[in-house]
């Protein structure tokens, strides 16, 4: 195994260039190093001006998402040896504006997420609960998968509709809406439908499925979206055929 590898890193310094450029760094190729370790080596030893986000380095904070050799990956969960002998191309996450180097602007997602009310919604006239709201293990299983989302945005990077449609809510937001819709303690499914059953909601999705491929936590947002399409369509059909029956 060679002991060095080249990283081709996208640089963007708005104060002196209009478009990103590529800078090459040669780093040690250590068997146990993730791409993030490589970037940290660059910043510590080679070029302190390189800007990128990272935090937990163990796949739970969702900060270190970048495009590695064209694929959206968590750099803390992607190993240098997987790309040996290299070179490895590291670019910022696709479908987001680039602030600097590998740092992207995720304000769009931060504005879209609250629209789906990702919290437990209880009925207006429900009395304050006496003690905890109980839930069986099987009720937990109904939504647990969708609660694994770490908001890393890899799914947004993988989804072409996010790049094409500015208003599209996106995979993670819809999966998180489903996490609450399917939670037995939640009573807000009807409220969320106004946001989800729209062209900017689930109907913009054409089931490309790349979001599920990219997700590092096994959330399967594509499945969440298709399941919701069925739910919303059944509700539309019911209200069309039996308009007198309340939801």
């Amino acid at each position, binding site marked *: 195994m060679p002991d060095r590898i080249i990283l081709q890193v996208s640089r963007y310094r*708005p104060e002196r260039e*209009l478009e990103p450029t590529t800078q090459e760094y040669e780093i040690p190729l250590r068997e146990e190093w993730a791409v993030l370790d490589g970037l940290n080596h660059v910043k510590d030893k080679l070029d302190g001006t390189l800007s990128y986000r990272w935090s937990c380095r163990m796949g739970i904070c969702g900060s270190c998402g970048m495009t590695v050799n064209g694929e959206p990956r968590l750099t803390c969960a992607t190993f240098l040896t997987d790309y040996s002998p290299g070179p490895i191309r590291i670019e910022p996450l696709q479908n987001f504006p680039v602030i600097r180097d590998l740092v992207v602007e995720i304000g769009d997602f931060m504005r879209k997420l609250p629209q789906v009310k990702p919290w437990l919604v209880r009925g207006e006239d429900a009395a304050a609960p006496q003690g905890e709201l109980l839930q069986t293990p099987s009720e937990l299983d109904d939504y647990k998968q969708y609660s694994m989302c770490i908001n890393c945005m890899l799914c947004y990077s993988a989804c072409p509709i996010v790049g094409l449609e500015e208003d599209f809510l996106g995979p993670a937001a819809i999966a998180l809406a489903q996490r609450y819709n399917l939670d037995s303690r939640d009573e807000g499914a009807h409220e969320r439908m106004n946001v989800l059953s729209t062209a900017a909601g689930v109907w913009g999705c054409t089931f490309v*499925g790349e979001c599920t491929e990219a997700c590092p936590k096994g959330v399967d947002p*594509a499945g969440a979206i298709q*399941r919701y399409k069925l739910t919303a369509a059944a509700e539309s059909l019911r209200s069309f055929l039996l308009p007198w029956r309340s939801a």
Partner: protein
Amino acid sequence: MSVRYTEFHPRWYRPPMSVFWWAHRRSYLIFVLRELSSIFTAWSVVFLLLLVHAVSQGGKQYRQFLDLSSNPWMLALNVITIAFLVFHAITWFNLAPQAMVVRLRGNRVPRSWVSYAHYAAWALLSALVAWLILR
């Protein structure tokens, strides 16, 4: 929405999305081919309606239709059509489990079973239709 770029809010770089975005990744290309299969679905409907019309018009029309269908260009088109129809069917049956959660006596039916059930239905219906037509 106009943004005033300042020293403390420098210009963001917004990469443009090419019209040919679907050609840049293999998974996107396969997706677009899957979507284009709908054109061959529509052609199949047209072809079958032409067949129904020919059959209803009498023996001469039916034989003319068979002759037209055996033209090499028509055969080639229909071979390609069948390839796309099969591609549509396979992708549809493989994706079905992701879209539907089936419960049997409270337990979730394994994903593979949902796919197998679709393939089984496909095989049975195809056999039935072939038998009805060829007997």
